[in-house]
Every structure is written in structure tokens, then in C-alpha cells.
């Protein structure tokens, strides 16, 4: 994980910059994590898969992907726990 602050960095300025960098890395990682867990990136994952595995065919559009995504859940319900 990036974001280590170097204790020997001389000036306050350097420490501040390191802190700012660490904060922004943490924020970026958090954003990535939340988007991944919530599922925002599902379409991107799908397109990446299609491009690498089936370069011969055109992937679904974003709207179409999400429609299909929920239609599949209609057909094949998943459980939620108590």
C-alpha cells in the first residue's frame, strides 16, 4: 500500500505534501472500493472481458447491459440473509 510518510523528510512542507499524497491515495482507494462493492464498475468489467475474450463481437451497450443484468436477477433470484 502506498502512502507511507517518511519521518526523515526534512521540512514541514515535505511532511505536508506527503500527508496530502497519502490522503489522496486513501481517498482514491476508498472510492475504488466503494464503487467495486456497490457494483458501479460491473459494466466496465464486462466490456473489458468482452474485448479481451471475444474481440470479434460487439459488446452490449451500457443501458442494454444493465437491463440484461436485472432481467437475469428476475429469472434467477439470489438470496439475502436474515
Amino acid at each position, binding site marked *: 500500500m502506498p502512502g507511507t510518510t517518511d519521518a526523515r523528510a526534512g521540512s514541514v512542507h515535505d511532511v505536508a505534501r506527503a500527508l496530502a499524497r497519502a490522503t489522496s491515495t486513501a481517498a482514491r482507494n476508498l472510492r475504488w472500493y466503494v464503487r467495486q462493492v456497490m457494483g458501479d464498475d*460491473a459494466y466496465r*468489467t464486462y466490456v473489458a472481458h468482452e474485448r479481451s475474450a471475444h474481440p470479434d463481437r460487439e459488446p452490449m451497450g451500457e443501458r442494454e447491459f444493465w*437491463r440484461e443484468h436485472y432481467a437475469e*436477477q428476475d429469472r434467477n433470484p439470489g*438470496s439475502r*440473509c*436474515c
Partner: protein
Amino acid sequence: MSAESGAATATDEIVPDPALPPTAVPAEDLKPRWTPAKIALWVAIALLGGIAWVMIALVRGETINAIWFVFASVCTYLIGYRFYSKVIERYITRPDDRRATPAETREDGKDFVPTDRRVLFGHHFAAIAGAGPLVGPVLAAQMGYLPGTIWIIVGVVLAGAVQDYTVLFFSMRRGGRTIGQMAREELGRIGGVAAIVASLLIMIIIVAILALVVVNALGESPWGVFSVSMTVPIALFMGVYLRYLRPGKITEVSLIGFVLLLAAIIGGGMVADTAWGAEFFHLDRTTIAVGVIVYGFVAAILPVWLLLAPRDYLSTFMKVGVILVLAGAVVIVRPEISVPAISEFASSETGPVVAGNLWPFLFVTIACGALSGFHALISSGTTPKLVEKERQTRFIGYGGMLMESFVAIMALVAAISIDRGVYFAMNSSAAATGGTIEGAVAFVNSLGLAGVNLTPDTLSTLASQVGEPSIVSRTGGAPTLALGLAHIMHQLVGGTAMMGFWYHFAIMFEALFILTAVDAGTRVARFMLQDTIGNVAPRFKDVSWRPGVWICTAIMVAGWGTILYLGVTDPLGGINTFFPLFGIANQLLAAIALAVVLAIVAKRGRAYWAWLWIVAVPLAFTALITIWASFEKIFSDVPAVGYWAQHRAFKDALAAGETSFGTAPDVAAMEAVVRNTFVQGTLSIVFVVLSIVVILASLVVTIKAFRTGGGENHEDPPVVSRRFAPAGLFASGTEKQIEKRWADAGLRESSGAGHH
């Protein structure tokens, strides 16, 4: 031969592609290297945990600080995870990272996607944790804090997490097959059919009891009814937003939804303050139950995108938020707890919250959080299709369940941080308290509890602080947890002025989890029913044939709706008579899941038998305790405990021409008791018979495996893996080196942070 590859399994045939960097950590690097610093760290963890347990279990002061519960649980989890789950990994599951997971071999970008382990942990946790771990520990608090604490923490390490981990692993080895399919395959026809029928019935009972918890929390609560009703239009708005305005912007719409939820909670307080609002949203529990039943049917036939999916997003959002807030608040506020370690009701059958002795009823009152059979349905099916590397299943399956256990401990702490008299006033049924403050005070003080002296003032002040007409007999656990949360949170933010907000915030999230579970549970049960009827009438298998969907949904809603209605109108109180069915059902499902795992492990061959106790001990324990509890419910002569004893007592009273009996004031109520105990007693018999059938089938298969030296291997044939990812939350030194080699070769495919 390495311990990882196991003896005489197909995995020995795996030959990694020499052109690729390593796909697995070499066996010699998996052996722990004990440095003095590491040893010191684990000694410190063990010491801290030990001290915390001594404080909780042995030191008897006037009060105990809640922080000890945090230390005892977290230290025990760490030790269980670091040591015991590794034993399971080494001797039972024996993962092999040179083998590709289904996510890799069948990758399709949708169902089968190799998912970052930390992300999958979040997905899996959101799917397993709900209202269950928040409710059971609250009800079990009547026995004192110690029995529940020990069962939740020890139970999860030795049973609950073992079940989740092994089911996840073996389902992954079978392409993500469900526990029902695995039962059919491993246990044969009879065991398989019994397992599927049992899971269907159990699903119905679990949905019914969860719905009962919501109805009890919202009955005669204008504020709660308003804010929880608002979740429906909020979810509909989110659904439309995601479909037509900004598809795929899930986090964005969840944030909007979250803000709207907060507005609904605040608005609910204002509405409940007005005369018209208080009147319009003041509904009795029967009306709310009918509303929930109608809602359950409509929600389950609406398309997923419109209601279920958006509410699920909100629910995930709230889940993580609430748990962080609750855990943070307990650590910061560190409430003092004056509840006794073991109360009078641990050894008496007459506890007003749930009837029955500690043995066996503690273990069925607290199901989720210690051992939850329902998780077997989640751990098989969805999660295993997303696992990137085999060794990650320990972190996701075992680790995820430890996290749920921690939630249960936090719920327990919240429940025991409130005054004990108030606790019993809230959790004793209206049949005992009469539903009035005077009745509750008289009843609670008559229990003769040491140090409890409840005054009418306490109850009326608290009710007005949380913005409720009354807090007497708000059974079901949710209101108690909400009060506990409000009690802790108001010391942190907002003072007593904010207590109403925190109380309804808690009610809101519990209702949100439960309504999602009701909707999703109805859909899954409908799906299973369609599949079953489809064997006779093939048309029903077609899930896009609407009449089939409607008919099966209606049957399932009728099933849980009936039980919900009986629970709400139960003259004996509802929760105290019906909740044991929930726990028994959940634990019997766990017994079924562990029985399937036992058969699988026995069939793996001789090299596994010495370690079979890892599965057999929790299976024996849960089977014993749950069958015992079922038998008490069926055969006990004590009317408060035995369904049939109660049934006979009321029937005899009716036959003798009596017009009131026990807490039933008239003939109609007496007839209701006769009817309800008949349903409860019958369900108990059906559950226990089905479970015994499954366990016997598993034992037969296991013994046969002993005789023949193993059995058929139903795992998918091994395929060579062509990717690498670390196994645990943090990458080890070796794992970092291997990741670097993949990155240097320009092959790094794994989805990691900072790589998007």
C-alpha cells in the same frame, strides 16, 4: 509432498504453465516463519483476550465496561482466524492455487468474474449479514450477558465460520453449485429431497418471523410507520433513476437515497408530532401485518430493477455505515453494563422474553452471529462463482462470518447497556404487561430481579425521548436494539434531543434489511417451488411465464403470511412463542449443511479422516442441541415450553367450558392458542424429521466412505490457473514478490486498487 496439495488427489496432476510467473505461493513459503516480533505480537493478543475474558466471565463487580466485550471478541477472532482456520485449510479444504477457480475457467464478465478478494469480502458480508444477528442476541440477553457472549464468540470460531468456509470452498470446487444440488449429489435421492424440502420450509418460517419483528417494531408507532413507508417511494425513485436517467451510477444513487432516508426519518418525527400524522400513521399490528403481506406479494412480482435492486443497494450502504457507527460508538462511549453475567432466567423455563432453559434454548435463540444455516445458501451459489484464487476462500468465508459475529456482539452490548427493568418492560409480551405502563411496572417488579426497581416515570420519559407513544411490550428485539443504540449514540452526538432520531434510524435500517430479506426470500422460495412443480407440470419451469410466477409467489406469500398473521394475533405474545421456530429452523439448516460437508470430506479419502472431527463436532453439537430443542417444543409438559402441552391445556379448558384461560381473556383467544400451537407443533415435527433424515443420510454415506476408503469425487476436473492474487487481506512478502513478477511481465490482470 506438500501439505497443500493433499494426498492422492487429482491436484497432483496440475502442472503450471512454465512460461508464466508462479500462480501459487510455493509450499515451503507457506510455512509460517516465527520471528520474535511475531511471537510477541501473538502473545500480546492472547494475553489481552485472556484478560478480557477474565473480566467478563470471572470478575464480579457492580458493573462491567463494554470495552472488554470488544477486546474479548476481537482477540478471539484473531486467534481463531490465524490458527484454527489455518488448521481447516491445511487438513480439510486443502486449497491449491495452481488450480483455476470457476471464476477463471468460466469467466463471462457477468456471473463468473474473478473478483478482488477485498471486494468479494464486502459483497459476501453484505449478503450474509442482516437483521438476524441484531435480533437474537437481544432476546437472549434475558439470560444475562455471559451465555450469549460465550456462544457467539466460541460458536463462530468452532462452528459458524467453519460451516461458511467449508460450504464456500466445496461449492467453489463444484462450479458454484447450491447446497441443495450438493445434497442431492452427495447424499442420494432421499437425503437430497429432504434437504430441499427442508430449506424451502425453513425459508418460509424465516421470512415470517423476520416480518413479525418488523410488524412489532412498527405497531402503534406513527413515526416508524411513516419513515419506513417512505423507503418504498425512495427505492422506486432510485430504480427509475438507474434505469432511465443514469444507468450504472449505483454509488451516486445510493448516496441520494441515503440522504432521502435521513430526510424521511427527520420528517417522520415532524409528521408524528402533528395531530393528523399521529392519527393517520397510527396503525395497529394486524393492519401492518396485512400491509406487509400485500407488500411482500407485490414486491416479489415487480421487476428487480424497480424495487428490490435499489433497496438492496440502500441496505448495503446502511449496513456498512451502521456497523461502523455502532462499533465506533461502543469503543468511544464505552458504556458501563450492570446486567448480571448469568441471570435468574438462565436456569428457569419461565423467562418472559423467550421460554426455556439455557440448555438448549440459548443456542436456538441466538442463531445468526454464532452459527447460521441460512449462510449455506449464500456461501453456495453466488460467492463461489466470483472467487479469484482458491486460498482466498478462508478470508472470505471464515473471515466474513467472524465479522458477522462481531455485529452480533455489538448488538448484545447495545441491548445490555439499557436499564434491565426497561429491557423486561419492552420485551415481555402484552399478555403479561397488559400493554400499559402500570401493568409493565407491576409485572417487571413482580419478577423479583435483583437491583431492578422500575418506575412508571422511567418508561414514560424514555418513550417521549424516542418519540414513541409507548415502549411497553415492544417485543421482537428491534426496538430494544434501537433504544440501546440511541442510548449509546446520544452520548456521542446530539444529547437526549437526538434520541428519537437515533432510535428511528435503527428501526429504519432493521426494517430495510428485513423488507429486502422478505422480498428476496419470497423470490428464492418461489423459484424453488417453480422448479419442484416443474417436475410434474413442465410449464412451471419457465420462469418468464407470468401466471406460473404469480401462482407460486402467491403460494409462498400465503405460507409465510399465515404464520405472520398467527404471530401477530397470538394471545400469548407472538415473539416468545414463534421466535424459537426461527432459531430451530436456522440451526437445522446448519446441521443439514454440515452433514453435506461431512459426507464430502469423508469421501475425499483416508488422509482426511483423522481431521473429520473439525466438521463432525459442530455438526453433532448443532444437531443435538436443535433436536433437543425441537423435542422440548414437541414433548415438554410445561405449557410455556411445549407447543403440544399448551395445545392440550387450552383444548381441555375449552372442553371444560371455560371462557378464559391463562392470558387468553375469551373463547376466541383460547381457540387462537389451540390453532397456533397446532401449527407450531406441526412445523416443529416436520423440521426435525426432515433434518434427522438428512443427517442419517449423511452418516450412511460417511460410513460407506469409511468402508470403501473414500467415495466418488464430484469436484470439477482441475484446470491449470493462469493468474495470481494474494490470499488474505494483506499480501505477504512472497505474495508481493510474485505480484511484482506478474507486473514486470506485463501480465498483471488481477483487479487491484490503483489499477483502473
